[in-house]
Structure formats: C-alpha cells, structure tokens
C-alpha cells in the first residue's frame, strides 16, 4: 500500500508543495529536451533527404565542438575558429558523400545504418588521436555567449535560469525556424523533400543526388556544431557526449524520423519526462534512472504506436 502511495501520490504532492522545484525541474528538462531535439534534428535532416539513419550524429556534435576548441587552443581567434570549423564540417560532408554514400547507394537501410556505426568509431578514434581524449572547456566567453544565471524569486522560493540555457533555447528556436522555412520555401528545400520522397523520381527531374546529400550532411554538421557549442558550454566537451546523444533515438521514435516539428516535440517530451522522472520518482529506485527512462518511454510508445507520434502509418503493399 505504501508503495502505491509513494508512486502515485507522493510525487505529485511534492510538486504542489514546492512549485519552485517543479519549475526548476521543468526548466532543466526543457533545456535538455531542446538539446536532444537539436541532435534529433540532425538525424531528421539526413534521414529525410538520404534515407540514411545517421548514427554518427552524436559524434559529429563532439567532433565539431572539439575542432572549434582545438583550433582556438592553437591560437586561432574565436570567430575565425568558428568559420574554420564550419569549413571542416563541409569537408566532412563531402568526404562522407564521396566515400560512404556513393559506394553504398543501392544497399539496404540496415547496411547504411551499420556504415554510420563505422563512421562513428572512425570519428571517435580520429578525434581522440588529433585532439586528445581528455575533456575540454568550451570557449563560451570568446563567442560572446552569456554566462551566469538569472534568478527569479517568487513568494514560494526561487528558480534559477542559467543564461547560457536561455541562449540555447533561443538559438535552437531560431535554427529550427530557419530550417523549417528553408525546407518549405526555397528551391533547394523543395529538392530535399523530393529526394526524401523518392531518389529515382528526383533523379528523373534532374536533381543531383550527390549535391543534395552534401548539402544535407553539411546542414546536419552545422546543426551538430551549434549543438556542440551549446552543450559544451553547459558542461564540457568530452566523448561521453556521444553516448548521451544516443538519447536522440527515443526522441526520433516519438517524433517520427522525418518530421522536424516531431523532433522538437519529441525532444521536449523526452527531456522533460526524464527530468521529472528522475527527480520525483528516481529516489524510489535509488536514482540514476535518467540513463534508461527515455528508452523505456520510447519503448512504451512503440508498442502502442509503432510509427511514433508524428510518423506516417506504414501500409505495406505487396
């Protein structure tokens, strides 16, 4: 009986008792969710246009951040380093298209998925060789990103909003808006949607698949860089980020693999859900349930709605 009370009643009472803690948790969850959403966004971009499930998105985040910090460590001024990193991501996009996508163009999705595993490990090893394996500090100051916190005092306590988190949410929102407009309104965006629908049809109207793929992987690279900067600024730049990036997978399951709004909504649900879960129900289980809660939530969704919240119902034609 007491167990039932602890699970179904007590957490909610805690929420009501200390609304400031609730708000803090919600805010932290929101920020986490935004960052998951950004990673998921990178996945969605690539999947929409090339049908490839890019497992390496997470390591691209780390790699981009490392390149930025690494260049700066060698004396390159911050914004120049930023520009150079963007260039590096472009080169990476070209390399991936040339060496991985083109040779594997007709293979099944699973094969391409496994190729991105290879890419992940390649970048992990390569990143560690070039930049060293120890965690690094993001060059927040030099990029004119704010630090410190805003505190908001109400009559029931206070909530602290890290300024960098606020900046992250704003920047992420701008990025999503830009991408959405890009997809819907521009010529290239239309071409991307065409390619996502059918490679052959797109080819037949003269769209160059290779160009599109480079564009899309580059866009994903830029998103990865942004994510890396934001995330690195909040904690640090280390390879463990790559495992955390796996959390984007549950986000994609909720939001569907091809939906940009889905990635956002999914990210927020997962981010807030796991923070609430960890804070209010975690202590019952000894803590640390953040590690798997997202996946179990996703699993639950999958069982009841295999196509996710926003995905299309798959009708198999024989």
């Amino acid at each position: 009986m007491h167990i039932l009370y602890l699970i179904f009643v007590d957490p909610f009472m805690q929420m009501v008792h200390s609304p400031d803690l609730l708000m803090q948790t919600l805010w932290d969850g929101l920020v986490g969710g935004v960052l998951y959403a950004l990673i998921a966004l990178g996945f969605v971009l690539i999947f929409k246009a090339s049908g490839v499930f890019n497992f390496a998105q997470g390591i691209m985040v780390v790699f981009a951040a490392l390149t930025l910090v690494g260049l700066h460590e060698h004396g390159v001024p911050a914004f120049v380093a930023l520009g150079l990193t963007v260039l590096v991501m472009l080169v990476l996009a070209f390399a991936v298209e040339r060496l991985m996508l083109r040779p594997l163009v007709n293979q099944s999705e699973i094969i391409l998925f496994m190729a991105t595993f290879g890419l992940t490990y390649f970048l992990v090893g390569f990143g560690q060789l070039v930049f060293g394996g120890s965690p690094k500090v993001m060059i927040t100051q030099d990029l004119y990103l704010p630090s410190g916190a805003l505190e908001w005092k109400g009559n029931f306590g206070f909530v602290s909003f890290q300024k960098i988190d606020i900046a992250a949410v704003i920047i992420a929102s701008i990025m999503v808006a830009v991408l959405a407009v890009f997809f819907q309104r521009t010529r290239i965006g239309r071409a991307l949607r065409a390619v996502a629908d059918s490679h052959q049809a797109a080819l037949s109207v003269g769209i160059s698949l290779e160009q599109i793929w480079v564009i899309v992987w580059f866009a994903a690279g830029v998103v990865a860089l942004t994510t890396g900067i934001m995330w690195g600024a909040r904690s640090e730049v280390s390879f463990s980020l790559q495992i955390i990036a796996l959390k984007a997978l549950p986000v994609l399951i909720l939001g569907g693999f091809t939906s940009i709004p889905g990635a956002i909504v999914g990210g927020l649900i997962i981010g807030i859900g796991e923070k609430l879960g960890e804070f209010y129900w975690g202590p019952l289980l000894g803590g640390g349930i953040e590690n798997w809660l997202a996946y179990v939530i996703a699993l639950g969704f999958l069982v009841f709605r295999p196509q996710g919240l926003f995905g299309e119902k798959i009708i198999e034609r024989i």
Partner: protein
Amino acid sequence: MFYREAGQYKSNYAADMAVFPILQDRIGIIVILVIAYVVFPLIGNNFLLNTILIPFLIFSLAAIGLNLLTGYTGLLSLGTGAFMGVGAYACLKLATIFPHVNILIWVLVSGFFSSAIGVLFGLPSLRIKGFYLAVATLAAQFFLEWCFIRIPWLYNYSVSGAIEVPLRTVMGVPMTGPTATSLTRYLAVLTIVVVLTWVASNIVHGRIGRMWMSVRDMDLAAELIGIRLFRAKLLAFAVSSFYCGVAGAMMVFLWYGGAEAEVFAIDQSFLILFMVIIGGLGTLMGSFFGSALIYILPIGLRLIPGNFGIPIRPAAAEQLTFVIVGALIIVFLVVEPNGLARLWQIGKQKLRVWPFPY
C-alpha cells in the same frame, strides 16, 4: 590441385547435406581441433593462452550469439553487452548460493537466465521492426546496465561494486580464481566453445536456421509459408541470449577473474556487433574471423610497431584501433558486405581451380 572435389561423389541426400561435404574441409576441421587441443597446450605460454586464445574464443561465442539474432534472423540488437552481463551475474549468484556444484555447470546454466531476459526484451518484436527494435534493445542495454550497478545483491554486496570471482575447483583442479592456471581455463573454454559451436551449426543447418533466414529475407513471405513470426523471433532472442550469457559468464569466471559493470556497457555491444559485421553476417565462421580481427588488431598495433622500434602509446594504439575498425567497417560494407567469411569462401573457390585462374 589440393582442394578438389573430383571423385567425391555423394550417394545419398544425407551426405549431400552434411555440414562439411568436402573431404578437405573435414580434414581441415580435424587439423584445427588437433592444433587447439594438442599443439597450443604444448607450446603455449601464459600470454598466448590468456591474452589471445581465451578471449578470442569467448568473443567468438558472443559473436555467434549475436550472429544468430542479427545475421541469421535479421533482428539488429544493441544489447549484447547487457545479455553477457546477465550471464555473468547469474553465474555469480548461482556459484554463491550453491558453492558445491561444478562451476562449469553454472556457467552453462547462467545462459538460461540470459535467455529468459532476452526473451523478455524481445517481446516488443511482435510489433516493432528494424531500427525501432534496435532502440528497444538499447532500452534493455541501459536498463540492465543500471541494474548491475544499483542492485547490490547482484554483486554480493561487495564494497567495490565489482564481481569478485570465488575460488572453485573441478575434480580437484582449480578452475576459477587466482590459482587456476591458464591452461586449465583454456581447455574449459575451448571445450565449451567447441560444443556450443557444434550445436549452433546443427541449429542453423536445419529447419530452424531456414526459418530464421526466411524471417530475415522477407518476413511477409515467411508468414505465408506458415512460419509464426513471433515465435521464430522469440526463439532467436532466446538462443542468441543464451550464447551471449554463457560467453559473459566465461569472460568473468574463466578469463578476467573479476569484473566491473562497465565491462558490459554499450561499448561491448558495439564491439561484438563489429565482429559480426566484419566477420560476416549470417555465418558461423564469420564470428570467429571477426573476433580474431577485432580482438587481435589492437594487440598487434601495440606490439608490432614496438618490435620495429617505433614507439606507440597504448592509448594511441587503442584510438588507432577505433579509426581502423571504423574505416574497415565502411570498407567491408562497400566491398564485401558479407564480410571476411565470404572472402574466405571466394578464396576457397580460387583454391579449387588453383593453379588455374578460373
């Protein structure tokens, strides 16, 4: 001219359907077994046995397990590490609760616990396919990882949080713990792996193997020849997890001698998956090839440059391994998606017509 089938007629179907129909292959297997059971024990030093052969065999067994699930049945799993862990922890509890039973029996029985957990996390395969199922296996992986740390009963409440392997003997000879010689452990591991590989071979050459491959190749068509998809998939999870569990138990009890939960983390899952991909999905031989390449490569990278006088930091060797393995995966998927096993087959084809080119 040595590898010819000429003159080897099969006069009945049973002979035609044998696992190794060609005489030279049969001789090859016998030679390998002789080397394994006689030559290595005679010439082997601690290093060869403990650092090369025992882990090679253990990882091969885990790779066979994953291959049955992913290579033969087409169900991508990222939970291999966790299933190995279940075997290891199950073995520890069994060995603790029943200390007088032969430890090797517990090693095998712990596979059944892994099997049960595997079936449990395979239940979603009723509704979910492809990548989505892979994410479900990730849920298993992370949840079980958490269990290994947060449930102290599992590691006998040891202060360090790690599995401490108790001393056990088999027929008077120390089998686990610091006094067990690498030779004893090697022979135990070798025998278990040989027997379980034989069993796996029997399974995949019969109707169950065909059933799994049908599910992999086109599950809709598999249904219409009467295969119950759900049962076939659950069976695959069960058998695959059994193999991974036994491998995990052997890893802790007959190799490391102790382990922390990190050993069964997601990196282990990826490691075994790479072995299976590079070695050859859907082949038993490929599991051995993949294990050999991926496990021995970093060792080679550490030793060989050193022998040539080029110093290389151990950390760099590991990072270089990642780079090479990552690149190899892409190369293999491009050039020969069927992995080393297929290259081996092609090699044998060329051998059949040697010294002619075709």
